[in-house]
């Protein structure tokens, strides 16, 4: 382990394996260039990144690509990680940027849920609520609405934080969230509030 900062050694001494989930020693080692330490970070955070990528893109192949690209980008950017924020937060931002950058690439194919996969916008309530689960409903949302719903509704970012990550105005972010909620409620046969 390249041991540039062993502050987490104190966490070991206190028998907390990690300090609030932050693997300080491993991050420090990875910053110093230790690939093995970075792999440990991958093992720890891959489900977090993949989950975020999957929800933001709505599509598995794209989510895998984004997860790989996120970790590659994180490795390259590690020397600039100043540890003012938590590593997971920093990784999240890279993941979001990776998703957005894929969309902006002219040669990239940005997969969205096909019309056949998307849930209908309106549901015939007389027929009873459709067997739609929330995950599918989220995946079928329009891209902008889905991204805001994922960041704010699932991952707990504030509107301001989500807007900054997505590069939109905060008002736009709020409007997209309202739209997302409405579409999901319709898809799941619920009252739109």
């Amino acid at each position, binding site marked *: 382990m390249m041991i540039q900062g062993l502050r987490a050694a104190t966490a070991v001494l206190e028998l907390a394996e990690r300090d609030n989930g932050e693997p300080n020693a491993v991050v420090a080692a990875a910053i110093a260039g230790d690939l093995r330490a970075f792999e440990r970070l991958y093992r720890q955070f891959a489900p977090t990144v993949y989950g975020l990528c999957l929800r933001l893109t709505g599509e598995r192949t794209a989510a895998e690509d984004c997860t790989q690209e996120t970790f590659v980008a994180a490795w390259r950017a590690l020397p600039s990680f100043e540890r003012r924020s938590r590593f997971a937060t920093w990784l999240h931002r890279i993941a979001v940027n990776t998703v957005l950058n894929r969309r902006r690439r002219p040669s990239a194919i940005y997969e969205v849920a096909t019309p056949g996969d998307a849930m209908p916008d309106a549901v015939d309530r007389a027929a009873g609520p459709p067997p739609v689960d929330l995950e599918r409903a989220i995946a079928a949302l329009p891209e902008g609405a889905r991204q805001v719903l994922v960041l704010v509704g*699932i991952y*707990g970012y504030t509107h301001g934080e989500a807007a900054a990550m997505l590069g939109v105005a905060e008002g736009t972010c709020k409007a997209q969230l309202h739209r997302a909620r409405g579409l999901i409620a319709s898809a799941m046969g619920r009252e739109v509030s």
Partner: protein
Amino acid sequence: MSENLRPDDRELAQLPREIAPPRDLWPAISRAIRPAPRQRWPMALAAAASGALLAAALSWAILHNRPSSVPAPAQAALAGPAADLADPSYVAARAELEHSFHERLALLEPVTRARIEQSLLVIRNAQDDIRKALAADPASPVLQELLDSTRHDEIDLYEGVVRGTQPAISRT
């Protein structure tokens, strides 16, 4: 979340944030990043720091007059590596971990203690061996990786003893 929680918000918040990738993506990631190893610490700077660390560690060893089954000449090797240790925060944190390691080592049976100290000696000797080889071939990525690996081993050993002896000193 700053929004007022509504039933559908609660549902969203309860969705799992972590989803395991369907396959291991690390091989592709490591292939993408491996060709560009990161800059290592300059050897000159490392050499300058190593003497200070060794002196500090030796002073600690003498101060605590720690008995050991390891022969006296090996004490110098055990006291600290002639390492590429440029970062003061590393030096301090490492010394802290080493201190706790030695404290916990004292809880163990003499035979176990001797085996652990022997393992540490094996690691330190390996590090010295690799450093000598690096002196002849400083650009060798294999040697550098092996050196990194032995540092892992050393810290794993410290952590193994510290964490492993915790049941001996805590009460439920």
